[in-house]
């Protein structure tokens, strides 16, 4: 399946500034594995050491959260779009800046 993965601004520093990466994959897990194989710096931002999705990144297929489907095992159809939606916060805090 030809899948398009949309990369949000906050994560583009790890994908050579690409806003969209195309992969061939049958499940969300396979698509994200292919993405992080190419862009290894992204791996630790998406997955924990236990290879679970981090809780500040949500993954959508189309407009649905994969948590409402089968999680990383959610199957993909041709031309599906995966969207990575991290929590963002532009305002300064005490430590960042």
């Amino acid at each position: 399946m030809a899948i398009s993965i949309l990369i949000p601004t906050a994560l583009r520093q790890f994908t050579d500034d690409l806003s969209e990466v195309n992969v061939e994959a049958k499940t969300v897990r396979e698509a994200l594995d292919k993405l992080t194989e190419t862009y290894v710096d992204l791996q630790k931002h998406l997955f924990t050491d236990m290879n679970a999705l981090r809780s500040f990144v949500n993954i959508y297929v189309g407009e649905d959260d994969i948590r409402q489907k089968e999680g990383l095992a959610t199957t993909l159809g041709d031309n599906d779009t995966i969207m990575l939606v991290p929590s963002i916060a532009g305002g300064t805090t005490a430590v960042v800046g």
Partner: protein
Amino acid sequence: MSELTKEEITRYSRHLILPEVGLEGQKKLKDSKVLLIGTGGLGAPLAMYLAAAGIGTIGIVDFDYVDESNLQRQIIHGTRDVGRPKIASARDGIKSINPKVNVIAFETRLSSQNALDIIKDFDVVADGTDNFPTRYLVNDACVFLGKPNVYGSVFRFEGQSSVFHAEKGACYRCLYPEPPPPGLVPSCAEGGIIGVLPGIIGCIQANETIKLLLGKGEPLINRLLLFDSWKMRFRELKLSKDPNCPVCGKNPTITKLIDYEEFCGLKKPEVDEPIEEITALELKERFDNNERLQIIDIREPHELAIGKLPNTKAIPFGQLVRRQSELDPAIDTVVVCKVGTRSKIAIRVLKEAGYQGPLYNLRDGINSWANDVDDTIAKY
């Protein structure tokens, strides 16, 4: 319900002739109380449009002072306000648009100690602070008090907005149970922001606030609006209430306000191996002694264009792991960023990736170099 004066009928006539607002709706707005957390990029347009719309009472919470670098986007503050408390300048801005608005100013940082007291008398809360500890604090307080929370967030060219109202749908914790570790997501001060973007997202928040007060229209409950200002594209995602949500789920585990700085990892003791640091003056001395050093600047190319150290090799943060072989582990490496925060994370990333050579963090970043060594470089 309050009546409208003759002047108010003229003033709000464009609302009054909208059947969806009308006289009844405008009276509701006049009797309404909205609390704005923060009067920055999002809070500025929120305050201005809510004042113009005739909201009876606007509460504003802020403890910050107007800085010159705020003016590119925080349009309620002007050049002559630089150095003033934001709360004073925002009050002037609101009063100049609409002197009838009752402004309640809280010159304080919203905290677990004061949040419930401050929020409890307001009908709707709009969070314009856009940082993680305040966002979770406002979310939890609103869940406990049953208040709708109008959310907005911005980063570079991208924004998000939603309405979190636990009685009717998802709260922020249903969407993101936990914040990212500090430093992983850069702030506007690091990541930059197109000035118009918080204006657009703040206006969306103002629009949602007015709909909630009127009890009309379709609010962004259970919907997350994503906006990309560079592609000029809106997307909408579905949100669902999480039955296991620790604050609004069936069996909540958090039933009172907690320490949000701690929750967001901002108070975490240094359990990791300490990172060695070098000051700008020490580095200058090593340059003067012609010592062999490699200077790795992990900022993005456009930041380097503002100014950099001599003999800098640029490897953007996001490419460090892939390009670590370009470093010579036999000599000392000094890692540089803007203020010395990202460079610390970069050093940890390199160590975790197996880099063996000596790594030093330039304390306080290029800004300290600009301060102490080379004043031809602009601080930013």
